[in-house]
């Protein structure tokens, strides 16, 4: 083994040069992944907080400022965190880093669709969600004339135009400058991108998983409604949940994650059905004359 020393790391060896290049590529990718993971955590937290805010909405109170706050919060998440992710994964296969931000994306979809349901009593469409995560490029030389197809069609006026200008974020475009003449970037970053917008692509499966989580919030909302005296909401929600449950159930070959969430969805539906049952069975007890009597009494108070 004496000749070991001869074969010691030879900095000029092509193999070593090649691996130095690999090292840079791997580190770049890992760093990017890590940055996305951090954005993902931020998105998760902000979306959860938006959901909490929405659970504070009561029929009786004045809720317009809550909705406004939520709209602002969601918009802020889109314009900062999601935009940053969009920049990170520009030119990448959208599925390559999906695992790094999937949980945040689902939580965001949960929040957004809950907000939408409370305002419109219906389910937000995937295209509308996707439109919110599609951004105009600030530095584009030519203006984008063709408006995206995915615009929210019957959106509440509270929801801002989903294609938003990106001005107040100060992310640098990551440029990989190659120090020693070898192309070490796994992916050439510099491309003509002036005519393409930035976006965070939402696979249909992520959307469906986010909507599954929405049903849990709907259940909470239904029970809260009983507590706060809104006796119609639970029936509306029950009917909505039944439709969603039925739609989920008729999916063939759904993946395991969907099935797991479907189980929770069914439990939520049972809870809402039981609440409706209780409302009905208790409501049935009042004879007409007593009800009139009761209402008049209440009015005196």
């Amino acid at each position, binding site marked *: 083994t004496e000749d070991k020393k001869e074969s010691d790391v030879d900095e000029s060896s092509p193999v070593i040069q090649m691996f130095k290049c690999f090292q840079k590529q791997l580190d770049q990718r890992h760093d990017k992944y890590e940055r996305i993971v951090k954005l993902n955590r931020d998105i998760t937290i902000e979306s959860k907080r938006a959901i*909490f805010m929405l*659970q504070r909405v009561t029929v009786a109170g004045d809720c317009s400022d809550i909705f406004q706050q939520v709209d602002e919060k969601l918009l802020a998440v889109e314009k900062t965190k999601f935009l940053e992710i969009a920049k990170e994964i520009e030119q990448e296969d959208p599925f390559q880093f999906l695992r790094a931000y999937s949980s945040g994306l689902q939580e965001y979809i949960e929040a957004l669709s809950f907000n939408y349901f409370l305002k419109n009593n219906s389910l937000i469409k995937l295209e509308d969600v996707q439109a919110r995560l599609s951004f105009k490029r600030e530095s584009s030389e030519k203006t984008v004339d063709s408006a995206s197809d995915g615009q929210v069609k019957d959106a509440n006026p509270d929801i801002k135009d989903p294609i938003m200008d990106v001005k107040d974020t100060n992310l640098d475009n990551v440029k990989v400058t190659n120090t020693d003449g070898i192309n070490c970037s796994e992916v050439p970053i510099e491309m003509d991108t002036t005519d393409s917008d930035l976006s965070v692509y939402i696979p249909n499966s992520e959307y469906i998983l986010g909507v599954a989580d929405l049903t849990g919030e709907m259940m909470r909302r239904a*029970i809260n409604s009983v*507590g*706060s*005296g809104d006796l119609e909401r639970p029936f509306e929600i029950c009917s909505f949940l039944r439709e969603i449950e039925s739609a989920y159930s008729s999916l063939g070959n759904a993946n395991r994650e969907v099935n797991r969430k479907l189980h929770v969805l069914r439990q939520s539906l049972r809870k809402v059905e039981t609440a409706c049952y209780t409302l009905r069975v208790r409501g049935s007890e009042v004879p007409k004359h*007593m009800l009139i009597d*009761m209402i008049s009494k*209440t009015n005196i108070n």
Partner: protein
Amino acid sequence: MQHENNISQVFSDYQKYMEDEQQIREEIRTVVRELEQTAREILTQLQSVHQTNGIKSVSSICDKCVPMFETVREKMASLNSKIPVNQYYRYNDQWRFSLQRLAFLSAYLTYLQSETLVTRESVAQIIGVKVDRQDGFHIDLDDYLMGLLQLASELSRLAVNAVTAGDYGRPMKIAKFVAELDSGFRLLNLKNDSLRKRFDGLKYDLKKVEEVVYDLTIRGLKPAE
């Protein structure tokens, strides 16, 4: 050999560290067990309001409980003396559950006495701890909140049993109180922890109380306010 002594030193330090910890844990365990014993006695006392004539003797039941908290404060002082400075969170799994239970008992007693929500400051005073960590053995915000959630659950049961005992006014007041508590809790951004899980039950407590109020209302049993 140089580094051998080094290694044994490192590990005998650690052995010492662990033994000290174990010692402290055992002392804590003993005090906590006594605290729990007292807490069980207070609870038994307070739960007698659910019994047939309990609702009528609320104030005498409360009077019996007050001195029992003296024991709590003594044990708590003893517990405090066991914990090294700045190591509350090293050991707090051991008393966390008991502290929540005591926060609940304080809140329940306070409610029965005055129909008001106990503050964290009052809880701290009643059970003999501090509010702020810097001031010594304290009660965490989470634990105080957990106690309030237990209170809501207990009050929803009380609303039912009050009606059974013929007290139709109490459910109305409980309903107002629990609704306010619910509004308060909804302001919080909870993580997916035990507090969140318990909070998820609050809406059912409120619902139950509302149902009692409804039952009384439709029967014209609601007393004039």
